[in-house]
């Protein structure tokens, strides 16, 4: 049982994005950037967004943390590139439901695509905040809030 849970949590796609995070760089000409911090485990990321009116033209991140948070930031960056503000907020909601194990995730696993890999997180309540840290940070950046996000 527990080994199955672990396999569900540490899926190959998560391990891959942890090892080789995508869009893992500082963005010098970002429209906005916000820091996200998890004081309990020390996960610390900066999310950079380049907005063109309502569209996320570029998204990147920097920082360090556990495999779940780093893969979450990496996958998020690949999903949100080119999306509108409204779409990004929809994805935020979907991801939230998914990692909290709430069934009304507003989309089938197919629709969730790569994000479906994070479904296993819901079995690990202590790790939910790792997965959602980059997303909360991104949301604050979208809303142009400057204060550091903390998932505690």
């Amino acid at each position, binding site marked *: *049982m*527990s*080994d199955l*849970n*672990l396999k569900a*949590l*540490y899926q190959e796609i998560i*391990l891959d994005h942890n*090892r080789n995070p995508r869009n893992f760089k500082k963005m010098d000409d970002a429209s906005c950037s916000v820091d996200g911090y998890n004081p*309990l*485990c*020390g*996960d*610390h990321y900066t999310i950079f967004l380049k907005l063109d009116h309502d569209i996320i033209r570029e998204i990147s991140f920097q920082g*360090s*943390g*556990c*495999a*779940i948070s*780093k893969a979450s930031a990496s996958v998020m960056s690949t999903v949100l590139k080119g999306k509108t503000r409204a779409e990004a907020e929809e994805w935020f909601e979907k991801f939230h439901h998914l990692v909290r194990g709430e069934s009304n995730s507003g989309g089938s696993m197919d629709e969730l695509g790569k994000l479906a890999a994070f479904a296993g997180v819901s079995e*690990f309540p*202590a*790790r939910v905040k*790792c997965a959602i840290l980059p997303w909360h940070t991104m949301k604050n950046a979208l809303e142009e809030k400057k204060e550091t996000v903390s998932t505690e």
Partner: protein
Amino acid sequence: MKTTGIMTKQTVFSLPLNQIRKDFPILSTNVHGKPLVYLDNAASAQKPLPVIDAIRRYYLTEHSNVHRGVHYLSERATGKYEAARSTVKKFLNADSEREIIFVRGATEAINLVAATFGRVNVQAGDEVLITELEHHSNIVPWQMLCEEKNALLRVAPINDRGEVILEEFDRLLSKKTKIAAISHVSNALGTVNPVKHMIEMAHRKGIPVLVDGAQAVPHMRIDVRDLDADFYVFSSHKVFGPTGIGILYGKAGFLESMPPYQGGGDMIKSVTFEKTIFNDLPYKFEAGTPDIAGAVGLAAAIDYINLFDWHVVEQHEQELLRHAQEKLAAISGLHIIGEAAEKAGVVSFIMDGIHPHDIGTILDQDGIAIRTGHHCAQPVMKRYGIPATARASFAFYNTREEIEALVKGVLNVKEIFGHV
């Protein structure tokens, strides 16, 4: 005292672990379907039956408020509470019960000293000296004091092994230093500081010393008079007692000179609206109804560990430590953080490419409880340039088999991350 545990006074040369573990029922439980391997003792130790039963018995048959009523139960509760103070006094080898103050824990004890001794004695331009090894609870109260007083917080650095550099500590003890506050054992690295020597250094310059003993008390015999500590603090829950209670030991001379910490009932002799006469030691520092059941539980915990020979306990824990360090260090890509010559039962480690938080989650699925994170010692993490470590910490009830389980679990972590 009649105990409900199965252990009786030991005169043996090795610990009867099977019997001891039966006194800690939680150690026989399963977690995620696997037998619990509890290696998070530096965060909080488990409780033996005699402690649990002493608290239950107290509430069943002995409870009332202390130092107040003339009725039977109040006298009974007062008797138990003061007997607990006596037990702690003997445990620390203090001079007198007057020097034993019940507080909520080591954190409150340090805050008490900073807010009373500190406020009176530390002025603008003065200095407070701590070390780079300290837990946040022995940093923040002093930082707050220094900010309030416009004083300077000085920090004695550690070397790469995680030992305080004594020459630097000595050099930083200056004419302006009003108090030095040092941990006996580092919670993050396990380093045992040579506190007796450090106290001597400070005393040569007339500087009083507070020792944070939270991590030392479960592992070694403490003799505050031999150490010549001016203040010594610890938490009950790390030494197999209940949470919510701890001890401030202070030399009577210092405690007498200090103003009260909190005002309220029990800490007074008489109150009029014009003037309050404060109570004598130790009650001056115990405003309000104390954690009576907590004191009773702590005394039961001390009675329990007094069943064992400290040399045998230390030997067993050192053997666990040696075994764990040897086995873990042999795993490629694993690095032990903190290699002081003298260590208590704590192994902090990191693994290449694997965050401690992931190590903790994977071990947990094997029923193995360790702590991951910065251990409330962020400056220590900064010193090593890492955000966090995984930390296994031992108590005398841990076994060699549990170390083997830890090592196996760590190898499984590597396998899951594909670092075979």
